């Protein structure tokens, strides 16, 4: 039985909605509107006067070759983070789905990284991989491998990918595990009797049945890699060495906060905002359809 509360007038419902609406308005709509307005302005170096320039900031951003470099770098970074986070989470979930000793402990421990803030996660990785004080950094150098992510761009990229993916594995793991457990056991038994090897069963039964989950997670992971990895990059490499780990979100920060180039920084933010709108649209629009059973 469903009960719908009926209020007289419109005051009470709006009062009840007000806190959430207020938070959304102050922390999301207002800054977003400001960013859009700012992206159409150009300010002088001292912030004394500003001029309305239409879309000049946008043109400047997208024609800047270093911005395009950052865009491709972001694409590579996000793809790598998503692939690594999804792949390892799926592997761990498949292991956890079996009847193993200490499964509950194992599952609980796997969820922990999600509770760690990005910046803190980055510091953990920093302590492990710092060339002078990190246990793995020192070990690598001791083995004769010239490990210094502060000098080597490739190593820096590898480290931020690893740290970012590590944080997202927990989230993916929970969803994959839930997906695996919703597959009826008898379907897998039927496949076993039909003669399918465990590997063949995985690719022909489990994986297709998990694909809606996987698609959902892919979108979520890409969004995460685009936007939420700022903390990891900021704590570990600050976008360096050179621009080796400068992603779009990090560049928007550098241009705006460090270089005080507010107009182009705002334009970059608006482009990123459109991107997240597009991703969210894809997520809502196609996920329901992809469920094919």
């Amino acid at each position, binding site marked *: 039985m469903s009960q719908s509360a009926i209020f007289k007038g419109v005051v009470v419902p709006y009062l009840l909605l007000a806190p959430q609406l207020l938070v959304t308005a102050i922390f999301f709509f207002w800054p977003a509107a400001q960013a859009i307005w700012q992206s159409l302005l150009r300010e002088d170096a001292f912030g004394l006067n500003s001029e309305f320039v239409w879309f000049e900031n946008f043109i400047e951003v997208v024609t800047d070759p270093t911005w395009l470099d950052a865009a491709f770098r972001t694409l590579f970074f996000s793809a790598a983070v998503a692939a690594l986070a999804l792949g390892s989470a799926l592997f761990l979930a498949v292991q956890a789905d079996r009847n193993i000793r200490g499964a509950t402990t194992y599952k609980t421990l796997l969820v922990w990284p999600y509770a760690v803030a990005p910046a803190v996660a980055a510091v953990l990785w920093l302590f492990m991989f710092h060339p002078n004080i990190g246990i793995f950094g020192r070990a690598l150098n001791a083995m004769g491998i010239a490990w210094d992510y502060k000098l080597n761009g490739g190593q820096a990229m590898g480290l931020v990918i690893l740290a970012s993916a590590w944080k997202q594995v927990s989230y993916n793991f929970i969803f994959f595990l839930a997906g695996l457990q919703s597959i009826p056991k008898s379907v897998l038994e039927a496949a076993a009797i039909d*003669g399918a090897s465990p590997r063949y069963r995985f690719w022909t039964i489990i994986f297709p*049945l998990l694909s809606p989950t996987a698609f959902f997670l892919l979108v979520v992971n890409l969004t995460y890699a685009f936007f939420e990895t700022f903390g990891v990059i900021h704590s570990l490499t600050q976008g360096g060495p050179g621009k080796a780990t400068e992603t779009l979100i990090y560049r928007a920060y550098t241009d705006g906060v460090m270089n005080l180039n507010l107009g182009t920084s705002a334009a970059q933010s608006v482009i990123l905002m459109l991107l997240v709108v597009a991703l969210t649209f894809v997520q809502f629009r196609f996920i329901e359809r992809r469920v*094919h059973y």
Partner: protein
Amino acid sequence: MATLSLRGITKRFGTTQVLHGIDLEVADGEMIVIVGASGCGKSTLLRIVSGLESASEGQVLIGGRDVTALEPAERDIAMVFQNYALYPHMSVFQNMAYGLKIRRLPKPEIERRVAEAAKLLDIGHLLDRKPRQLSGGQRQRVAMGRAIVREPHLFLFDEPLSNLDAKLRVTMRAEIRRLQRRLGVTSLFVTHDQVEAMTLGDRLMVMHQGRAAQVASPMEVWAKPADTYVASFIGSPSMNLLPGIMAADGVVALDGGIQLTLPAPIAGATGRSVTLGIRPEHLAPAPDGIAMQVELLEPLGSETVVHGRMADGTALTAKLLGHVPESGELMLRPDPAWLHVFDRETGQRISA
């Protein structure tokens, strides 16, 4: 086609033993129904035969080949599950072809076999559909089809009819029987439904608490139940089980004082505590019978089930033809040819 032998199958989960040494010989083409209440170990036994579960002790032989240590895939069996276990993301055709594809059969051969099975089961027009677009009965047929196309040595049915509505269950029951006869594949069929068991099996194995209480043809199980459990489990309504003592080798004195004479004396039984079994349908009105106070009538149309009590308060059930008064006293006489005598301690049958 093949024979199936089970030799001393036991199964323990931790410290609980669920199967206590099951032996069974199934002839080529025979259909054995394993029947019992839930928790008696019947599904576990079937899963051990399939290889999905491993026995703690004992051997499984299919066609004389010891398959105890083999994987399900290597046993050449097919199984129909209670919830059908169709692959939800595959079409009916793909569902049926899955096992054949794994065996790397040539494409035309796969198509021929699937088409043949589909025709046999009357699901030819559904081959492009997904399982979710099918009704319960159609899903059941597809599950059967998936088993048939494999042309296995052994069919295993794990309560395949329990998710269907009553009417469909009767139709599918007859269909499974017809199909099994026609294909002549050795089959094991697990069910908790005694009507299914009686109608489907060449022989029944009645299981009780992890043991085979009786293995015999349906009529024999009904006519000569091996113990009081089988006696009460098979037959509807259940057999009346009345405590008594052997007053003489051929006479049972019920605790209520009534004496009944058996058709043949049992040598040396005098003085033994027994349970006398009388099926409700073997009680008939007779002036010199046992007095029963009528308490409740269940009219079934052609017959009426009468619940009541004897003079000493013991409950008694009878199944009578024709009109029965709503209340009052009935005089009922058991057919002496159909009296069953069981040992009261062990529950085992003692009359021949």
